[in-house]
């Protein structure tokens, strides 16, 4: 059984059909990369999995439980899934340490000193332990994104969702974040990533999914989807990416 199973998910915003009967499976420990043009529904899919959006139809199962059931405890489900956003979304009024300890203390009921120790350990892992007392606006973009990753990771989520986490970063800061994601992959953390970093996708993905008009048009190993796509749409998308110098 897959850790995450998405079946026939539909999501519309007004007349705009963003996800149109979407199917995808993510196995335990797998790293699945979503690619596709802007507006193809990548971010919406991640937001639906994290219950930040309500699906219009279809089922999302996490660990065999239907999380799209309106009777499900959404707060509890969200607390088991980590999400990292393109724009970091750190809490600007809290220090980096307090950003990381907020959920452990308030949601998971971890004792303050234990949460602090765990958070410092996590910050050490992402290379930010010396910035623990700093406010987010004193950090560079790459540091903020690493802090956001630490904030999500500290809750030991079953699944990590990463939404274009390097898109807002200066080119020289992208590397430090991707390095961190490589480590997470090596640790066997299950990840669902959407990204425009094709070379990174080829390197870390176990499976690549190309989205087109709200459907998974082509799904397969990165060597096949990125190097030898069967679908003309995928080829078209990749050639545009190559032209813009990102592959």
């Amino acid at each position, binding site marked *: 059984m897959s850790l995450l199973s998405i079946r026939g998910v539909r999501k519309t915003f007004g007349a705009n059909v963003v996800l149109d009967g979407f199917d995808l499976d993510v196995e335990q420990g797998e790293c699945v990369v979503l690619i596709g043009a802007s507006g193809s529904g990548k971010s919406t899919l991640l937001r639906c999995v994290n219950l*930040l959006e309500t699906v219009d139809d279809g089922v999302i199962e996490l660990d065999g439980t239907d999380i799209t059931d309106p009777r499900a405890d959404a*707060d509890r489900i969200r607390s*088991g899934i*980590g999400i990292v*956003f393109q724009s970091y*979304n*750190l809490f600007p009024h809290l220090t980096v340490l307090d950003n990381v300890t*907020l959920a452990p203390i308030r949601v998971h009921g971890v004792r303050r000193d234990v949460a602090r120790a765990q958070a410092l350990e996590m910050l050490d892992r992402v290379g930010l332990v010396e910035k623990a007392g700093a406010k987010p606006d004193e950090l560079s973009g790459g540091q903020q994104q690493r802090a956001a990753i630490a904030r999500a990771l500290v*809750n030991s989520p079953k699944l990590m969702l990463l939404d274009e986490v390097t898109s807002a970063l200066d080119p020289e800061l992208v590397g430090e974040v991707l390095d961190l994601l490589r480590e997470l992959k090596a640790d066997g953390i299950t990840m669902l990533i959407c990204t425009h970093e094709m070379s990174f996708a080829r390197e870390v993905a176990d499976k690549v999914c190309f989205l087109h008009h709200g459907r998974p048009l082509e799904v397969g190993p990165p060597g096949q989807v990125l190097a030898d796509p069967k679908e003309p749409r995928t080829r078209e998308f990749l050639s545009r990416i190559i032209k813009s110098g990102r592959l």
Partner: protein
Amino acid sequence: MSDWQPSALQVERLAYRRRRTIRSGLIAGISTVLLVALAVAGIGSTPGWPRVRETFFDLDRGWEALPTVAQGLWLNIRVMLVCAVLIVILGMTLAIMRTLRGPVFFPLRMFAAAYTDVFRGLPLLLVIFLLGFGVPALQLRGLPNEAVIWGGAALVLTYSSYVAEVFRAGIESVHPSQRAAARSLGLSHRQTLRFVVLPQAVRRVMPPLLNDFVSLQKDSGLIAVLGVIDAIRAAQLETAEDFNFTPYVVAGLLFVALTIPLTRLTDWVARRQGWYGGGGGPV
């Protein structure tokens, strides 16, 4: 860094800027002196001025009235402090009520919306009259009859409707991505409001909030209409003795002196948060 010496070009620029500063200062000084001289000469030459000066600006009379008026002002200060605390509590409660979701809270949302509509629309003076004269006339047992309490209640009712809107604006100014980030960590709606939204909202609305309290400081003088001996009423009583209006001027000066520190604090907080002049730079 340490062995940096300004270039000849920069030395010349600095000298130029210095000359400009001195020149601006001189122009400002001369124009101020001229304008004040004109105003004094203009008002002083009106036929009624000697009489006005005697009635409104009698130094001896003012000095004599000062202790009584200042004693009245102490009441204004106490009323203002107590009301400010109650206003913050009530205003925050109303603002939170308006942001509650779900059908259960519909009556609360409606109540808060109606409350702010009514009390922002009603003139403060009218609320003071209604509460100050109306409630004691009901002769309800167990309720206090002191005018100062009902005057204060009117201030709290009216001002909390303004403060509620200020808080609500702050709550709604926090970007939705902040809520998304908090909820994604598993925080409930309530926890998100308490730990993520409200701390940012309150910080953001500090300047307009303090501005409302500057306004409250002087509006606390309106309870004088209920016969409470505050600074204005004290001045009125003094005036009634000899029809010299200088005590009013004294009360006015005391109110201005009272509000200036809070006004400056508001400016300081606003500037620190970049509300104005934040960008800096030459433009």
